[in-house]
């Protein structure tokens, strides 16, 4: 966790209660999760109740209150990918990583998320690892793709 960077983000929005979502989003992007003491720090800096920070932080799916794995695996389960076999792809990814969507493995190697449409339907079904798209996947290719991510 880069404390200086987080402090910098919070400072940028100090005193602006309306910026709550922006602060949380920037820290989530930077740090990949939102530690509780950081949430307290935000509440103090923006001068809003901690309960309101927590409400927003727990409401949006993107915000994580627990640490993520080194590699974030995203299986697209949008309708187009679904029609093209995303279910079976997800099963294969679950088998390969040993985790279910929303979970992180004990070694913190992988976090698995499902999510709907990312707008690249012609590539479906696909998995996205750390932002890199692996297009037109089949369950058989999963092991090979994931072993690149340690």
């Amino acid at each position, binding site marked *: 966790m880069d404390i200086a960077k987080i402090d910098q983000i919070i400072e940028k929005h100090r005193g602006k*209660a*309306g*910026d*709550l*979502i*922006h602060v*949380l*989003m920037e820290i*989530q*992007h930077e740090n990949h999760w939102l530690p509780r003491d950081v949430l307290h720090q935000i509440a103090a800096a923006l001068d809003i109740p901690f309960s309101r920070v927590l*409400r*927003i932080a727990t*409401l*949006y*799916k*993107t*915000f994580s209150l627990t640490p993520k794995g080194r590699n974030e695996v995203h299986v697209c389960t*949008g*309708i*187009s990918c*679904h*029609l*093209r*076999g*995303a*279910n*079976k792809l997800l099963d294969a990814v679950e088998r390969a990583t040993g985790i279910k969507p929303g979970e992180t493995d004990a070694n913190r190697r992988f976090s698995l998320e499902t*999510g*709907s*449409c*990312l*707008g*690249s*339907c*012609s*590539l*479906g079904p*696909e998995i996205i690892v750390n932002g890199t*798209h692996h*297009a037109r996947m089949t369950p058989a290719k999963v092991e090979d793709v994931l072993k690149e991510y340690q």
Partner: protein
Amino acid sequence: MTRLQSAAALEQLRAGILSSRDPAKPCIAVCAGAACHGLDSARVANAFQTEVGKLGPDAGLEVRVTGCHGYCEKGPNVVIDPEGICYFEVKPEDVPEIIACTLKKEVVERLVYAHPDTGEKAIYIGEVPFYKHQMRLLIGDNTRIDPMRIDDYLAVGGYGALAKALFQMTPDGVLEEVKKANLRGRGGGGFPAGLKWETAKNAPGKDKYVIVNAHEGEPGAFMDRALFTGNPHKVLEGLIIGAYAIGSHRGFIYTRHDAPQLIQHIEQALAQAEEYGLLGENILGSGFDFRVEVHFDVGIFVSGESSALMRSIEGLPPEPRPKYIRTSVAGIWDKPSNLNNVETWANVPQIISRGADWYAGIGTEGSKGTKLVSLSGNVVNSGVVEVPMGTPLRKIVYDIGGGIAGGKAAKAVHFGGPMGGSIPASLIDAPLDFDELAKLGAPIGAGGLLVMDEDTDMVDVARYFLEFLTNESCGKCVPCREGMRQTLKVLTNITKGKGREGDIARLEDLNDVTGAACLCALGRTASDPLKSMLRYFKVEYETQIARGSEGKGGKAAGSAAT
């Protein structure tokens, strides 16, 4: 760059840009749209830039990294202007050959389109079947524009409509033009944009807001992102013109946090427009002030709903509210707030520059202009399509989309994602028209067209959409939260072969309640896919239920998946 102070200064700048460019000089446009990007088009673009760089400043050609060209299925896409030569599935290894041939005015035959059955080749953009049946008024400029450079937009006539509106038209005149064009909202409702503008304009109060809804959370919809990422100034120009008509001085762009490229292009567009004097104080010396800020959704579907979106801009949880009073009267901080989606705003500049009569000449009686469609599912050519309203769906699915993938037969086409509806393949000659498709039970929605082949399990599709919405319900109102949960339970049982007699009546009963009693459009239209299925595919539901009640067990959920 000093801020432009008049319409004449804008035209002078435009003339300068055009005279510095040689229209005959080949320009290689490399697509960096969402799908091409996923196919690593960045490596192709880098290869072009490196190779052309080696040739030095007198290379005789230039490279442009652009937004989505449309033909996502065959990415990475490359188009070479001025001829409009299309190369598909281009790899970094192909780059030296393309450059060498382009300089010799030759064509790389092996990279052009070849018809999958006949092998017949098509070289130019106007010949490729995917493009030739389209009318690309909104997205057609994408190949000519580097979204990071405002000069490219000015070179295709950009901000000309804004200058015309500010200096030759009154705000009322702009409003009348948009009303006369009968521009209908592209976000889902199809509500006339002019009437909405008028409501916001006439609403009491001095502070008024205009908003671009670029949330596009619907699965299978990616046209707004393609348009906005590829040509951000077009949307911005429309927004400024709308603000001028309504009398608003503050605008908002609301988009998803997980589209980094889009965010970068929007921020760059805002900064450049401000620098040029097209945004900010005293725009083009007209005395009109307008500023825009960007806000983000961080992963909640319902925050694309207008009242929820406005709560989110205020920094509050995105929960919809009942709309006894429209948001165009009381929206953000209870001020009049006019919200339109990306495509609606993008239509405004051409209505102003070419006139309402021209615009109203395209399309059908009730649906004017062109419509962007994201074509996906079991279709040969997925991609972003733009056709005149009134185009038969058959033309979109077969002539443009190339028919059903894997040589299978079509079963249904679905419009509007989880809040839309499916119609059987037998109705595929229906026109792309707000009212006609709504009558058939498959309202256009935002324009996501999903093609489903003969293997598709229609019970599973309804279950899928409902599961999506159940997860996305904000939970504020009971009919939505509980109604959808119960409907989903019944549907899941049917797909698992545990259907019971009376299930269809139970589903219809639940549909009636959620359709009437939910607070916002998410809940009220959640049952729409199911309603359309029960209208056209009831037999399939009955068969699956019968299998359950006979205790034989059914096929597994998601059997459509291959």
